[in-house]
């Protein structure tokens, strides 16, 4: 079922992924955890994650493309609201978000975006 090519992709992909982590280990030895540089990289890490999450919600790739932007934002809003109403219960918030997305998708249908 598989041609040999995919194993080369896995090998190259695994090495490329590990390279980003190994680079981090090598460079981290010169990083002072109390220094300004550390704060800066930490801020970049948080900003990157926020950008990544915003992309997943606003510009999804794959199955989620079938849902409307308004539905995804409403689901996120429901999750956030429940999160703060329940004293930061992530489980309750996640369930609320999923129920909202499923409900809205069923009501609106995938075509009406």
């Amino acid at each position: 079922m598989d041609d040999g090519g995919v194993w080369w992709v896995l090998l190259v992909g695994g090495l490329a992924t590990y390279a980003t982590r190994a680079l981090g280990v090598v460079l981290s030895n010169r990083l002072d955890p109390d220094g300004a540089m550390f704060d800066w990289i930490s801020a970049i890490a948080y900003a990157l994650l926020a950008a990544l999450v915003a992309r997943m919600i606003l510009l999804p790739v794959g199955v989620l493309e079938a849902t409307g932007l308004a539905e995804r934002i409403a689901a996120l809003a429901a999750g956030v609201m429940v999160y703060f109403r329940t004293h930061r219960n992530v489980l309750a918030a996640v369930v609320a978000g999923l129920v909202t997305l499923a409900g809205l998708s069923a009501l609106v249908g995938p075509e009406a975006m």
Partner: protein
Amino acid sequence: MAEETHDLAEPGPKDLSAGQAFWGGVQCGCGLPGVIMGASFLGFGSLVQSADHGLWVGLVSTATGWALPGQVVGIELHATGASLVTVGLAIFLANLRLLPLVLTLQPSLNQSCVHRWRHFVHAHLIAVTTWVISRRRFPELEPSARLPFFLGFGITLWHISLAGTAVGYALADLMPTPVTLGLVFLNPLYFSLLLIGDLVGRLRVLAIGLGAVTGPPLILMLGDWGLLLAGVAAGSLAVLLSRRPARTRASQAAGRG
């Protein structure tokens, strides 16, 4: 005999032995983070199946990559027949976001004296979920308990990811669309809530806010480069802006003088 329980004084977080910290990490991984992780990899498993690969392709990818965006890029680019150089660069780029995570978690993991080669093993377990949860839990853990907690947590999530990949592969044709939708949405929803929970302190609020605002337009324009640019630009801007009060006070003082 409820009265007897007071003899079993609950160990404070500081008294955790390495073994207790490790099991604390395992338990934490078996909770909500594990559910989210498993669900995300269910999606990857079904992607591998629908691309007509064997189960081993998915399992090896999850075991060696363990960073979902790069794994998805690999499977998708292979389907388009891209060259190995293109695939390698695209995956490296998609996963460069791991670099600042490793840089900022590594120092608190390896404070105690361990062999240097082990740092390179630990780094394989650093991913978005392990980073966010570890940073949140570390302040309440004694430095010596941090690495065992991280290992228990990371190793648990790694195994759950493998199981998720296998189950997703097996169920690829059986899962109804609403379930798949929910599974895929779980990941961004959970990460959003984690980041909202981390909105503490001026620097983090600015970094997360600016990243979320600048990310999508830059990604639309520049793809994965846009993501990296958004991270570096928003992170830098956050550092500059979070220092503004001091400067404003200084300039006000200068204005008055």
